[in-house]
């Protein structure tokens, strides 16, 4: 009995190796850097708020068996185009953001469809293709916004464009500035729409979350007639989160140090609602017929095709959805930053999002919402803590900077390696088994012929 328990513990550790390792790293770098808890929490909440949607956008392609979608860079660009246009038109505030999202969605549908068609031509190599496609798209984006805007595309706006003199001595505007500041009403429009102190927000959130958990449990117990144990197990994510929130609430009420740490923290409620809505949308999609198709295609394309699913179309739809969500994610990200680095903001979007998802414990063919949020929190704590820790340890923030880049690429490389290796080993085992079966058949036949002779 004890042995079995021990095995289970080891299994748990093995399954969650990456998140556990990164939790340790995070705690160590927080400890080393010596920053106070309030700063860490504020920074974490703001970073999770602005990055979560970008990472959620990766889930559908993973389920569809296309691996990690590095081409969300295209979605990010669509989002940027939307924001640049509303700045150009001075269509500010929340309604501007909504318009930007609409523009971004339309662009994303087009770009996502093209990406999906390309991915269908390179089945099995989607990840590297997505990465190169990202580079390619950066080139095209630069071509449009450095050279074509103002010269071929008619647009004049001294506020966001570079001016120069032509031969006749007239001032002409060609190309966008490197940094485009959003107008005051657009900056932080979603974040500042409804801000609440964390200490006030938590009880309400806890109550809502507990209620949702209770409803789900009740539904499972009464409607689906599952046993108590089964129901608890299948919705363990909700239960664990509720318990953690409750513990936090108690701690804030009782321990002064924790109260102090959380006292200044504010929660952008509207951003939280947008994130929750996007998550629900993705969960909802996975429950529909389309979601079932996506999963089937992800498991085995031949089987899906035999079952009458249009494999190519399903893959394109998954890519389009991923691109759309990424474009919204980039809009939320940039309104939180307050400006857009016209030619750099999208560069590392794919890499960071993928690394964050993997840190949460996802793999190339499996990703859940829980992993998204674990990964976002861990990755981004590490992301802003390592330079600070590097500064304390080695008196050189640069070292921490390189360390975080290394972690980022390293985690991607190792996940990709493990996945590919597992696939090769499984293939080898299958071949070996087939070979042995054939041998056994042969033996059987020889035995029979021997008998007759």
């Amino acid at each position: 009995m004890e042995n079995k328990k021990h095995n289970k513990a080891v299994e748990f550790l093995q399954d969650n190796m990456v998140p556990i390792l990164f939790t340790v790293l995070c705690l160590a770098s927080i400890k080393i850097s010596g920053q106070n808890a309030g700063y860490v929490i504020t920074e974490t909440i703001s970073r999770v708020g602005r990055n979560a949607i970008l990472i959620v956008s990766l889930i559908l392609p993973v389920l569809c068996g296309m691996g990690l979608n590095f081409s969300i860079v295209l979605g990010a660009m669509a989002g940027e185009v939307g924001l640049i246009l509303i700045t150009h038109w001075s269509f500010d505030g929340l309604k501007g953001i909504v318009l930007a999202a609409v523009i971004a969605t339309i662009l994303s549908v087009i770009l996502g469809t093209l990406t999906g068609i390309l991915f269908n031509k390179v089945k099995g190599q989607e990840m590297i293709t997505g990465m190169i496609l990202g580079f390619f798209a950066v080139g095209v984006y630069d071509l449009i916004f450095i050279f074509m805007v103002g010269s071929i595309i008619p647009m004049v706006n001294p506020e966001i464009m570079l001016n120069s003199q032509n031969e006749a001595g007239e001032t002409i505007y060609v190309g966008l500035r490197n940094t485009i500041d959003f107008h005051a009403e657009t900056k932080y429009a979603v974040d500042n729409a409804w801000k609440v102190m964390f200490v006030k927000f938590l009880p309400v959130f806890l109550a809502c979350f507990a209620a949702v958990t209770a409803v789900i449990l009740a539904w499972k117990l009464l409607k689906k007639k599952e046993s108590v144990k089964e129901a608890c197990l299948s919705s363990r994510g909700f239960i664990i989160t509720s318990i953690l929130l409750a513990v936090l609430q108690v701690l804030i009420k009782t321990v002064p140090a924790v109260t102090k740490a959380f006292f200044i923290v504010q929660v952008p409620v509207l951003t939280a609602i947008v994130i929750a809505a996007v998550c629900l949308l993705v969960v909802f999609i996975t429950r529909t017929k389309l979601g079932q198709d996506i999963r089937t295609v992800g498991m085995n394309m031949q089987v899906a095709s035999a079952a009458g699913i249009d494999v190519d179309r399903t893959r394109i739809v998954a890519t389009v959805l991923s691109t759309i969500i990424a474009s919204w994610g980039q809009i939320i990200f940039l309104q939180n930053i307050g400006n857009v680095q016209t030619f750099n903001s999208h560069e590392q979007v794919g890499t960071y999002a993928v690394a964050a998802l993997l840190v949460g414990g996802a793999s190339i063919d499996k990703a859940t919402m829980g992993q998204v949020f674990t990964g976002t929190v861990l990755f981004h704590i590490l992301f802003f803590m390592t330079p600070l820790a590097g500064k304390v340890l080695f008196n050189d923030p640069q070292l921490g900077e390189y360390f975080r880049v290394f972690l980022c690429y390293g985690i991607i490389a190792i996940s990709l390696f493990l996945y590919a290796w597992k696939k090769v080993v499984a293939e080898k085992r299958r071949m070996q088994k087939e070979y042995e079966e054939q041998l056994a058949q042969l033996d059987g036949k020889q035995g029979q012929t021997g008998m007759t002779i």
Partner: protein
Amino acid sequence: MNRLKQAVDYLGVSRTVVIGFLLVLILSVFPLGINPGMIYSDCLVRIGMNGFLVLAMMISIVCGAGLNFGLPIGILCGLFGGSIAVQFNWSGLAGFWGACLVSVPFAIAAGWLYALLLNNVKGSEMTVGNYMAFSIVSLMSIAWLVLPYSNPKIVWPITGVGLRTTMTLEENYDKVLDNFLKIDFRAMGILQDNPYWKDFSLSTGLLLVFAAGCLLMWLFMKTRAGVIMRCSGVNPGFSRTLGVNNNRVRTIGIIASTVIAAIGINIYSQSYGFYQFYSAPLMMAFPAMAAILIGGATPRKAGVFNVVLGVILFQSLLTLATPVANAVINAGSISEVVRIIVQNGIILYALTKIRANGGK
């Protein structure tokens, strides 16, 4: 006419178009008033600089490992050898070859490990290799900072630790190959009254080294080992039935690719005049890849001819595009943007030509 048709068939239509475009660029230099002697010399230097990196890409394709996205690993070994050479103030031709020699053992070790990795992930070599190379580049960024370099010429001036981002080779072996047997019209006084050709120069040494590299590679492909490697790369299943150990062939090919890349970056840097550390090697595989693909190679098949043609076409296009574009439309850095689009466009196009499970 028949001959012409044969040539077009041999090269393929798209390559003929590229060659035609290049010819237009080459000739357009004269009416646009760009100094042809200077620009043609630049083209030749660029071809010699990048040639070895493209050769490294070729042998990786021939041995069946596909496009070598792990080229930065070899480049890092070369940079490491180079940094040792500069640390001890080696100079001249001997210093340069010393740097290459020092990098070779590291390249062999790294190449062997990299081959071990790739042999375990058949079918996903490109993705895994790419991110493995990226992570090793960033790991080496930390190494450049903490390794005990002490030569004041190469460490950061104030702190005294860690390599600088770029390391000048002025006092070591800056352009030693370029200047070896160099034919410089201006210095030699040839054609000095001709306005077009007076600035022309030919970096004989650099091109000789590239030619020697190509010749050796071509000879190797004709040997028994070379034939086995080509066979194993094109059709691994068939080779296995012939008793070829595919994994061993791939290991040899990838080690060779890493070693050639290590020597290649030294050749590149001596001509450039600087070693570039930290994130510089990150993207260096892609131009080499684009060059060999534009030369007519596919991710499954390549030859020395593809290397030579590809590096000439790709590098000349890039070198000529900047001044010509500036003269025609006066648009600053457009050629850099066009390079990104062309380079990645070519790679994307080549990727679509690999069918699913093509590796098996």
